[in-house]
């Protein structure tokens, strides 16, 4: 890795000193080559997973790089039914759907009040939420397990939804508060003069105006919660209770005593499809949203 990064820099140093307007040629070959290499490093493994998912276990060994001679769709049915990916998938849809909806509702309520109303403790609550972005979830994990257990919510979808929501609040409040601050005050004042109360102002004026920000944060939360591993791994004990990310992990671990390589690859494809589709559709918003959240 390290040698790879240095090579192009050396190349630029020699071309740079020549100070010819066309000296970029050598550099372009280098940088294009390196850019292309990195792209290959991303595309080839993913394409290999998809190809392998359609092959028989025999063919994986005899022809690892070629297209499948026969498309074995039954790998997917096996993964969906026998490996339990179908259940994991539905569990994930349920938890992430509930989690993102609740996160957006509670997050935008808190962010709105913190961004646009002055009151004592405003700064305190804001910092309390934002500080959560800095601490490793690991530290909270063990006590969290027992809190959820004591509430009788261990291994339940509802419990996991509450936990996902709580751990998504820091980023959501941080991003949405910044967004609500940018909305014009004139519209809010006009609505108040027209007799709208605080609640109507929020639900009928501010929420529609904040749509683009809400969409970005919602996409971010969908990706984040969809891919969550640690929390379901610990908080959803028991057979068939897994979500996709930790379900894939347990399918992979079970490979050690019950190998079904093509089935594992088919499970991977099933787990990747929603992320891939969401990414292709919302590519622009995802990139804009993620980076806007990180740039102050």
């Amino acid at each position, binding site marked *: 890795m390290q040698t790879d990064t240095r090579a192009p820099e050396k190349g630029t140093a020699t071309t740079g000193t020549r100070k010819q307007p066309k000296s*970029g040629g050598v550099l372009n070959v280098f940088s294009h080559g390196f*850019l292309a290499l990195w792209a290959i490093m991303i595309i080839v*493994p993913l394409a290999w997973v998809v190809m392998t998912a359609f092959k028989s276990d025999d063919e994986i060994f005899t022809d690892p*790089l070629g297209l499948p001679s026969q498309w074995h769709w039954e790998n997917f049915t096996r993964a969906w039914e026998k490996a339990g990916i179908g259940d994991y998938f539905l569990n994930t849809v349920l938890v992430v759907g509930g989690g993102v909806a609740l996160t957006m509702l509670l997050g935008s309520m808190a962010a709105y009040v913190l961004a646009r109303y002055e009151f004592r403790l405003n700064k305190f609550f804001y910092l309390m939420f934002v500080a959560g972005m800095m601490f490793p979830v690991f530290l909270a994990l063990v006590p969290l397990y027992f809190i959820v257990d004591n509430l009788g919510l261990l291994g339940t979808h509802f419990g996991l939804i509450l936990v996902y929501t709580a751990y998504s609040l820091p980023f959501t409040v941080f991003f949405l508060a910044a967004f609500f601050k940018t909305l014009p005050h004139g519209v809010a004042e006009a609505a108040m003069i027209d007799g709208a*109360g605080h609640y109507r102002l929020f639900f009928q004026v501010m929420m529609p105006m904040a749509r683009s920000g809400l969409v970005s944060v919602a996409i971010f939360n969908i990706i984040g919660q969809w891919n969550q591993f640690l929390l379901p791994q610990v908080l959803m004990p028991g057979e068939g209770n897994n979500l996709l990310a930790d379900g*894939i992990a347990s399918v992979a671990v079970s490979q050690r005593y019950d190998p079904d390589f093509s089935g594992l690859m088919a499970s991977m494809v099933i787990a990747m499809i929603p992320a891939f589709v969401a990414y292709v559709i919302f590519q622009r918003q995802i990139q804009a949203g993620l980076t806007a959240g990180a*740039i102050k």
Partner: protein
Amino acid sequence: MKQRKGLFITSFLVLPVALYAIMVISPFLQAFYYSMTNWTGTNPNYKFVGLDNFKRLFTNELYSVYLIPALKHNAFLLIAMPVIVIALALFFAFMLNVGGRSRGSRIRGVGGSKFYKIVFFFPQVLSVTVVGVLWGAIFRSDEYGFLNSILALVGIPTKPSGWLSDPDIVLLLVMLVMIWSSVGFYLVYFSAAMSSIPTEIYEASMLDGASRVQTFFKVTLPLLFESVQTAWIYLGIIALDAFALVFVMTPEQGGPNHSSEVLGGVMYHYFSSSKAAVACAVGVVLFFFTLTLVMVSLRATRRERVEY
């Protein structure tokens, strides 16, 4: 009206704050307390033992065989991983945004920038376990592994002790996967920051005859300093985790023979073997590790902001 406003604020804050306090704040605080008890996690009776857990973790051989390698590995990841990711991401971002100058006087990226940005970013939306299983399958030590099957095609036999079963390189492979999945995000992140630098600055440096290397080190890098600093902290936090990848990719989940042990894995080990208090103590060690990282990097990189 004033009262209504107060009621409105309270009604909007009470649920999010309560949920956050119960699920996030209180477990964080409890972890510190439990780390100083002999709580098993299952037995309701426990007592305060002071710093015993910490002493044991560092000095008792049964415990330190986990903790010490984990500390070393996380420290290694913490130093090496962010440097490589930031260097690669900066290089790519520079090429994709201002690297294509030789084709005309306008400042722009090399050809195909958009395509590269979309592809490079994609691993970021994959679940860390999917990434781990994917690379675990590539580096598998038997004949099913992608690398081994390629090597077998050209006639190099597979080694049962190769790749992830090799204690010397297993941690490097985990780091490689971390780099693979995070470069794209920081590329896009730095690109956003680069595009807010006015093009006149680049044009001026070009007129002065600066090469692309000079432009990068004398213009781009200083103006991106704050973004690099933020990236450093976030990558540091990722480097201190690494648990999911180690859990999915490596043999014995941290092996072979503790050669890819990380703090998160040690914590998980104690949590699942009824030593909840020890697990909390590992969490506290991790917390101070993180805190030190944030403090040091903020201190070490403090400097005046360049306004433009």
